[in-house]
């Protein structure tokens, strides 16, 4: 009898997915679907928050007032994305504090790209252009994700990400049209961020263990390699337009497939960074851990004060 019930529930669930009806927090869903989403959404949330650090690194050194304000606003947006996403994960029963502790203990992952250092002002351009660019590529399809709260969060997030991408490209354009020193700075940033940005789409399809199930559940709409190809095809002409060179000798237009062929990605490097051996993994987590630790007394005090206030109000009322 019970087994029969589950079968019915599962059938109804898959029917909703197949008919593009959104799954909402109170709806029944298979446990694996829930766990997959919790993992993906909290990883995404962590990426937004850890992603504040490489760009935060240049806020106090931005070259003029306008750039400083735009960068501040951008990093602030990322904090906001982190908040919506932690909330979306909470609708699935995830505990925000626990999720964050998992990040700090190394149990939860975040996008590997943020384990690369930002070494010059041009990196603010490269990060906006390529990293936010890749994020959009990943996230636009997520606006149609089967889980309602995640899909809706992505609609908001994507609007802001596309603004970030444009401002990053604008920084690169300005540098590419600037002095020889500025142009070299821009090219160097592109050289360092190009391959890690392509890695942002995750391992090649044949090694991606979650892709098929996620596509059946309409959490994912394109494979990693499809998204990576789109990224290359969109970005190469942009680089050409501003006179920068993509650091890939094998890059070539393929007329038949109507896209670029590109060189081998160093997956060794990718897995090393995922494992914790990137240039900044330790520093990023340590920074986040410290922020939480240093803020503990503030959160405790805020709770204590709220309690006191409640008590005073009940006393007044009685």
């Amino acid at each position, binding site marked *: 009898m019970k087994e029969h019930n589950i079968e019915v529930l599962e059938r109804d669930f898959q029917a909703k997915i197949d008919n593009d009806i959104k799954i909402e927090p109170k709806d029944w869903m298979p446990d694996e679907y829930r766990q997959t989403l919790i993992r993906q959404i909290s990883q995404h949330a962590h990426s937004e*928050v850890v992603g*504040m*650090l490489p760009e*935060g690194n240049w*806020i*106090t*050194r*931005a*070259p*003029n*007032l*306008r*750039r*400083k*304000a735009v960068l*501040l*606003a951008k*990093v*602030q947006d990322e*904090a*906001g994305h*982190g*908040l919506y996403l*932690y909330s979306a994960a909470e609708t699935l029963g995830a505990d925000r504090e626990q999720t964050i502790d998992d990040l700090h203990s190394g149990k939860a992952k975040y996008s590997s790209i943020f384990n690369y250092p930002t070494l010059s*002002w041009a990196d603010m351009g490269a990060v906006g252009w390529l990293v936010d660019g890749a994020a959009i590529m990943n996230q636009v399809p997520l606006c149609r994700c089967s889980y309602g709260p995640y899909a809706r969060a992505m609609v908001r997030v994507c609007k802001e990400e596309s603004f970030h991408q444009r401002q990053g490209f604008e*920084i690169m354009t*300005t*540098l590419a049209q*600037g*002095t020889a*020193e*500025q142009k070299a700075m821009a090219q160097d940033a592109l050289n360092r961020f190009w391959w890690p940005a392509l890695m942002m789409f995750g391992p090649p399809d044949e090694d991606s263990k979650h892709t098929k199930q996620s596509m059946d559940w309409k959490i994912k709409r394109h494979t990693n390699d499809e998204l990576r190809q789109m990224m290359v095809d969109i970005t190469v002409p942009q680089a050409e337009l501003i006179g920068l060179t993509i650091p890939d000798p094998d890059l070539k237009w393929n007329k038949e497939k109507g896209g670029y062929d590109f060189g081998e990605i160093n997956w060794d490097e990718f897995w090393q960074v995922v494992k914790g051996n990137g240039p900044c993994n330790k520093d990023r987590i340590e*920074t986040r851990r*410290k*922020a*939480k630790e*240093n*803020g*503990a*007394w*503030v*959160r*405790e*005090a*805020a709770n*204590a*004060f709220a309690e*006191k206030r409640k008590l005073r109000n009940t006393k007044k009322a009685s």
Partner: protein
Amino acid sequence: MNALFEYLLRLGDDSLILGHRLSEWCGHGPILEEDIAMTNLSLDLIGQATSFLKYAGEVEGKSRNEDDLAFLRFEREYKNLLLVERPNQNFGATMMRQFLFDAYRKLFFERLVHSTDSQLSAIAAKSLKETKYHLKHSSEWVIRLGDGTEESHEKMQSALDDLWKYSAELFYQDDVDEDLIENGIIPAVDAIKGEWDVLVRNVLEQATLIIPSNNWEQVGGRKGIHSEHLGYILAELQYMQRAYPGMKW
């Protein structure tokens, strides 16, 4: 020396340096919501700095723009209060610094709105809206943390003890001010002082904090005599402009 130019530097530098200090918090706040809030404060202040320094450049008439003034003066030429260059220390101390400053700024902008100088009054009107929100935010935190736990109370009392001596400079006055006050360009500071006292005492009382008995007044910023901290702020702030002179970004 042009008094209005000098005065605009004071206003612009207060906003610039405090905005810089707040931006140091980005990514390090005690909760994500406060990361966002402090970035908001910082953005408003950088915006105010931009308006004041842009106007300062026009008043000076030597074709220096807001970026030239923000990034290419030497240490002794910055005229901000010592208070705003104090290090962030911890979130409580940052909020205490903010509160002492916001309380002054709100009262000041309320009057500057009536300036006979239409540009100043326009900047003041916009800034006043922002500052009212800043003051609400910082005073709520001062109360919450002052009257929170024993630990937070101690931290806030020690922040107040450290920062109090810098609050006198909020009311610093010299011949730069006198001239401008006479022409109705800026408000008289004395009147603000009385209201500031009431406002600040009220909030500190709710926060169960005690104003230190030591009433030593540490001043200097308005004359360009700063603490050792400003040099490091400027080293970061000016890095790009100094390393790559004359380039467009």
